[in-house]
């Protein structure tokens, strides 16, 4: 019995071992299979996830690209808009509110004008100074001349040297030369002060031409007395103020005749009752304009019918063929009209 049990046990051991081995092999194999299956599943899941993720990523990426593109566009637009606005704002401010460059130009122009004015004023001041100096010098000269003229007696003569021509000097003093040039000053006669309060009412009315004129005393003529014997002053004045005695020819005016006529006319006019001229026709003065007949004042000349001929122009309308004859003889009174009674001086 023991060997059976030993055989059973040995088989059992083997059986266990084999069973374990088989289990091991099977489990390992199953494991491999499952692993392979899992691997496959992983792979497939990865592929699915990969595709899905790729899809999602692409979507996202497109969104980003779109956004980026929009942003880029907007930036560009903004930049361009900024440029436009920059120009526009500058232009608007300069045109309507405040132009900086104009201000700068203006200030520059102001300072240039200021400089110009300063120069001009300097020149003006200098000119004034020069004129003043010149005037001063002239005044000095005049004064010195006047003094030299007053002191002309200090001039040196041949015998006696003057005070400005001292023998101990090399050249004479400049005053000496001035004195030589100066004309001696003659003392003026004292002018008579005329009292201008003289009454003019003392003047006589000059009625006759022979009286001397009583005008105001003329101011004295300021020169030396003329030399020589003179005629008596009353004679001279008589001669000077002798009235005019013209010849007969000069006594009458040249248009005497005309004036006499005028005089006569005036006298006659005095006696006129009516000043109007004697008029030829009664309605001459009425100044009516003569309105001729329209009939005779046509555009194409006066109608000759009625003045030149009294027959119609159209011969068909004539009553008879013969010409008209004058029935009455012409008036004898007017046969000599225009002709004189004598042959001399006949009107041709």
């Amino acid at each position: 019995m023991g060997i059976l049990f030993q055989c059973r046990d040995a088989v059992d051991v083997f059986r266990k071992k084999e069973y374990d081995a088989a289990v091991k092999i099977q489990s390992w194999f199953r494991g491999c299979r499952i692993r392979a299956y899992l691997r496959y599943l992983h792979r497939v899941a990865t592929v699915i996830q990969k595709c899905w993720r790729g899809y999602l990523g692409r979507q996202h990426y497109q969104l980003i690209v779109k956004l980026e593109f929009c942003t880029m566009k907007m930036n560009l637009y903004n930049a361009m808009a900024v440029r436009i606005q920059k120009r526009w704002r500058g232009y608007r401010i300069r045109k309507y509110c405040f132009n900086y460059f104009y201000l700068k130009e203006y200030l520059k122009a102001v300072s240039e004008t200021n400089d110009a004015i300063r120069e001009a004023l300097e020149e003006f001041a200098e000119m004034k100074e020069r004129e003043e100096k010149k005037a001063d010098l002239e005044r000095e000269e005049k004064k010195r001349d006047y003094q030299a003229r007053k002191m002309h007696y200090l001039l040196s003569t041949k015998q006696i040297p003057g005070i400005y021509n001292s023998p101990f000097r090399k050249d004479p003093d400049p005053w000496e030369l001035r004195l030589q040039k100066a004309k001696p000053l003659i003392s003026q006669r004292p002018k008579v002060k005329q009292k201008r309060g003289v009454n003019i009412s003392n003047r006589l009315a000059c009625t006759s031409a022979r009286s001397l004129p009583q005008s105001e005393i003329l101011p004295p003529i300021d020169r030396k007395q003329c030399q020589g014997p003179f005629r008596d002053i009353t004679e001279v004045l008589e001669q000077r103020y002798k009235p005019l005695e013209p010849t007969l020819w000069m006594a009458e005016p040249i248009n005497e005749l005309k004036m006499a006529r005028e005089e006569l006319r005036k006298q006659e006019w005095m006696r006129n009752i009516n000043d109007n001229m004697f008029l030829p026709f009664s309605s001459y003065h009425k100044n009516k304009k003569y309105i001729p007949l329209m009939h005779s004042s046509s555009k194409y000349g006066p109608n000759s019918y009625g003045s030149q001929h009294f027959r119609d122009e159209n011969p068909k309308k004539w009553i008879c063929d013969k010409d008209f004859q004058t029935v009455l003889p012409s008036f004898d009174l007017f046969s000599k009209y225009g002709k004189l009674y004598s042959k001399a001086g006949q009107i041709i």
Partner: protein
Amino acid sequence: MVAELATRPQNIETLQNAGVMSLLRPLLLDVVPTIQQTAALALGRLANYNGDLAEAVVKGDILPQLVYSLAEQNRFYKKAAAFVLRAVGKHSPQLAQAIVDCGALDTLVICLEDFDPGVKEAAAWALGYIARHNAELSQAVVDAGAVPLLVLCIQEPEIALKRIAASALSDISKHSPELAQTVVDVGAIAHLAQMILNPDSKLKRQVLSALSQIAKHSVDLAEMVVEAEIFPVVLTCLKDKDDYVKKNASTLIREIAKHTPELSQLIVNTGGVAAVTDCIGSCKGNIRLPGIMMLGYVAAHSENLAMAVIVSKAVPQLSVCLSEEPEDHIKAAAAWALGQIGRHTPEHARAVAVTNTLPVLLSLYMSTESSEDLQTKSKKAIKSILQKCTYLPALEPFLYDAPPNILKHVVGQFSKVLPHDSKARRLFVTSGGLKKVQEIKAGPGSLLQEYINSINSCYPEEIVSKFFPGVQVFVSFMTA
């Protein structure tokens, strides 16, 4: 009698009063004309000397007699009588009113039509003195029809007559716009404008003064004066030798400039500002005053004009005036003008501050010797300049000596500039300004405190805290 009177005019100062009047009066009615003339002359000289004597002349009832005989007598008498009227009228308005009341104006106006220029001159002088006192008297003179005759007198060839007529016109037109308008309506401006070119300096004085009296009342009158084409001829008068001509010319320009910006612009465009600046530089004392005021008026209108004034180098000249002049009112005017220039924009304030005038202004404000007017003006000028000044080197001295009310403006300016400018911050610390700011004691929540806080916030904490115990600054911090 005649001899006695003839000697009297020579020794007026030793004369007594009342007796003479009663003596002279009957002499006026004397038959001989020379006696009348000399009596009138004597009366005139007496009245000229003293106001009381003039009153005695009026009280002695001499005026009606004079007026009555003015109409009839010869020209020497007229001259002497007009001289009396002038001498009486010049002392006070009441005496002038007395002259007007006895009907002298009509006779004086008749004298203005006389042929002799001496008579016209005396009559014009008398009318000028009467019209000088107040507006009613001027109106009375105008109502008597004197103005057209005065304008005719101006056109006469004698220089003395022109002078007197111009001064009479100036006295008439100075009181009110209506009177000035009356003078203008007669066409006086054209003649006055022509006479600016005359070389005689006393005439120029009067003409310029007449034009300035006309121009000062209103914009229209000023424009009419300008239309008479006085620019740029008037600028040559600014270079004249005579001081009063310069003064009157700058007065005229000032009166024109003060009305509107357009008129000031006109003056600037013709180079007037440069001429006035040179004129200020060449004279002293009261002569400068109108020129200084003119610069102030021009700058006050707009900032472009103020910039033009700055460009014409007026600011150094004004600061020289401010420091040199002894008189307070001229200094006040210079301070005001500088304030007007500097108050517009930071550029202007900088131009003023660069010339180092602000410390001078501050000292004038602080000194106890300055008059009220000077103090107020310099304070206003400082305030207005400081509110725009961003030129820090000029502001720094103020931190040390300014009184609190000015200090707050200074600190305010610092607080505006420092946050933006790093170099300025560095300079501020190195020059010890930050330290000073910390030492200022300000009430909490006051404006000053806020400014101090904003300054402190520009700097890192360590530096600020270092100052509290009053320690010196380390430059390395800022340079790192």
